[in-house]
């Protein structure tokens, strides 16, 4: 395609309109179903992701929240088949339906060299630590150029021009193209990662805690930039973070993960006002707020379970303030929350309905489970 001589190649803003035709359609752009990943170790399989169903629609921001070890990164990287041994995908399906693949591609069937067609061209990633994800001995311009040359048919000049305009896009001066990662500040490096992620105008961008390592002010700035770019280029975002409060501001929908399973999916408003799962409630209670009255908060006592050796029934039971013996028999499948305003609000906890107050703090001493508290349920 030819471009105007004056501006060279530029990023498009028109994809939004092409998407408009099917943007509201029901078919998700990424459909993860029944997806499971284990890590094979000497001491048995670690079931890092267990039977997860998650759909991402075009132009949507889905937040994936959970503590470290909950499997959120494994889910995201696994769906691109970027996990390394001893990781093994034990089942499920990941179907990608993008602009160029309207009939859908099964990622798990792809041979190694076929995956390169999907990688970055369709799904790109912003890594957690830009310092580690950028090659220390290549200039940042060359690293973006690598992507452009691998996936797009452009002349050398056009490709370089595109890299420059990408840097413009994330407000980095063009002459920084020749800089090496160690010469940039943390915020700038993360912007370079974002520019690189957008270089081929992918339809999905996975963001793996892109701002966790940054100071709050810079973090805010970069998040705002991401949102702004998303509005212009309308890609879908899978945003992974342990910071639920951030997701509530940023995401359209939030999926909460615990011990390899999704325990709740709902719109941000719904998660914020009517969280259904005790774990989600606990997470929401883990953030002191700057606004509103100062209140006593408890967090979630205890530690996540050993993924090699999960308790029967609900894996959150040992830490759950509402748990009953009946929880040992549930299978943690997601079910609709009937009382919710969001028709797509699902949760893995069948016993707790939205609106249950969190029990007062102080009854528990340490991380060890205090035993079950059936009265919490009966109070409901």
């Amino acid at each position: 395609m030819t471009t105007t001589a004056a501006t060279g190649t530029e990023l498009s803003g028109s994809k939004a309109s092409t998407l408009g035709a099917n943007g509201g359609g029901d078919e998700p752009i990424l459909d993860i179903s029944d997806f499971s990943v284990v890590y094979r170790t000497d001491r048995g399989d670690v079931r890092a992701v267990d039977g997860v169903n998650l759909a991402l629609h075009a132009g949507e921001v889905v937040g994936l929240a959970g503590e470290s070890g909950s499997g959120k990164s494994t889910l995201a990287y696994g769906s691109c088949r970027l996990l390394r041994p001893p990781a093994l995908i034990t089942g499920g399906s990941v179907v990608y339906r993008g602009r160029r693949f309207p009939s859908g591609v099964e990622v798990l069937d792809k041979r190694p060299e076929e995956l390169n067609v999907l990688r970055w061209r369709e799904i790109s990633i912003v890594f957690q630590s830009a310092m580690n994800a950028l090659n220390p001995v290549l200039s940042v311009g060359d690293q973006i150029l690598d992507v452009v040359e691998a996936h797009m048919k452009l002349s050398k000049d056009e490709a370089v021009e595109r890299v420059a305009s990408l840097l413009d896009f994330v407000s980095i001066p063009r002459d920084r193209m020749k800089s090496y990662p160690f010469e940039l500040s943390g915020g700038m490096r993360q912007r370079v990662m974002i520019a690189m992620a957008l270089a081929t105008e992918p339809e999905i961008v996975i963001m793996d805690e892109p701002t966790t390592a940054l100071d709050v002010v810079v973090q805010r700035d970069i998040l705002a930039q991401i949102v702004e770019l998303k509005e212009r280029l309308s890609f879908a975002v899978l945003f992974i973070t342990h910071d639920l409060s951030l997701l509530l501001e940023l995401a359209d929908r939030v999926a909460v993960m615990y011990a390899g399973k999704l325990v709740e999916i709902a719109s941000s408003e719904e998660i914020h006002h009517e969280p259904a799962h005790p774990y989600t409630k606990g997470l929401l209670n883990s953030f002191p707020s700057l606004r509103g009255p100062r209140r006593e908060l408890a967090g979630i006592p205890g530690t996540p379970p050993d993924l090699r050796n999960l308790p029967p029934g609900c894996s959150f039971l040992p830490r759950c303030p509402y748990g009953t013996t009946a929880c040992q028999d549930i299978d943690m499948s997601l079910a609709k929350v009937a009382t919710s305003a969001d028709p797509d609000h699902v949760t893995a906890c069948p016993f707790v309905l939205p609106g249950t107050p969190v029990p007062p703090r102080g009854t528990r001493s340490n991380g060890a489970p205090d035993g079950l508290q059936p009265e919490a349920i009966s109070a409901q």
Partner: protein
Amino acid sequence: MKAEEIAEPVQDGAVAIESPAAARGPLAMQAISLNKDFRLHRGEVLSAVRDVSFNLYRGAVVGLVGESGSGKSTVAKLLAGQERLTSGEVHLNGHPVALTDRRAFRQYKSEVQLVFQDPFSSLNPVHTVRYHLERPVKLHQNKRSKAELDPELTALMEQVRLTPASQFLAKFPHELSGGQRQRVSFARALAAQPSVLLADEPVSMLDVSIRLEMLNLLDDLRERFHLALLYITHDIASARYFSDEVLVMYAGQIVERGPAEELTQEPAHPYTQLLVASAPDPDNIGSILRSGGKRAARNVESAPRVTGACPFNPRCPFAQDRCRSEDPPLMRISSARAAACWRLDVAAPQLFHQSEGGVAHEGLGGPLV
């Protein structure tokens, strides 16, 4: 009205400002005009800490908030005696501290203990939990025999709620979760039976879900042992939750200080305002992030430090010529609050249109966002 007219410069921050923490208990530690310069490779000097003064009181928490590189960890190391002061003084229980020899240092350590940020690196991987606790008990409580040690170790473990103690004492650090390790660090600090505890980002490396539990534990310990606690953090919301007084650091200086609630609800210094506006807020659904992300083009990359200017001026929306030529001192806003800014009258006008003590309650995010 100029800022100086409404807010008088504070000559000696430690004395002239009433700390809200003073109500909790007697004065334990005074930091007086701490300065720390680091000599860089090419003969340049980095002023990591500049003229920092504050007091710690028994039973009270002072929160020290700042971004990475603001010098807040250096303050902790200076107070702990891990770094040498370039100038300034530290007073403990009214007496100036002089760490002249080994003995003086060890004696100081039984009064002042520092808890480190990273529980994965602050415990020696080759030693058991027992070793980590035994050493301070032996050195500071002079208990040597097993009969004396064991009850003490068990008591320590119970104080940080690692039970059954015998089971945890035999473990190596790699067998513990991050939260459990940090509990061991707390226990090790307590074993010296200190009166002052300096906690350098004690929860930032832990999972969100257990951070509050750890902060609550720290709070319990403060109450039980009547500790003077310095809580260093980059998270201003947790400082509000946890401390009596909050100090905000920027580029090695304290730019604002005041009672935690007042300071976070009505920040005076433009930097504090920026910090408060940037903190994630779940109540803020439909914030700038969701409404298309209108981004204020701010220069967030740190500009080179110019001496004799307000360090924040390159990023400040209120900066004037004076801010670029003269470094503002801490100026009193009310009896317990002070900020270092020439433009307070513009940055936080409502603070001065009210009678002293009365605090306006409309949010402040406006001018920056």
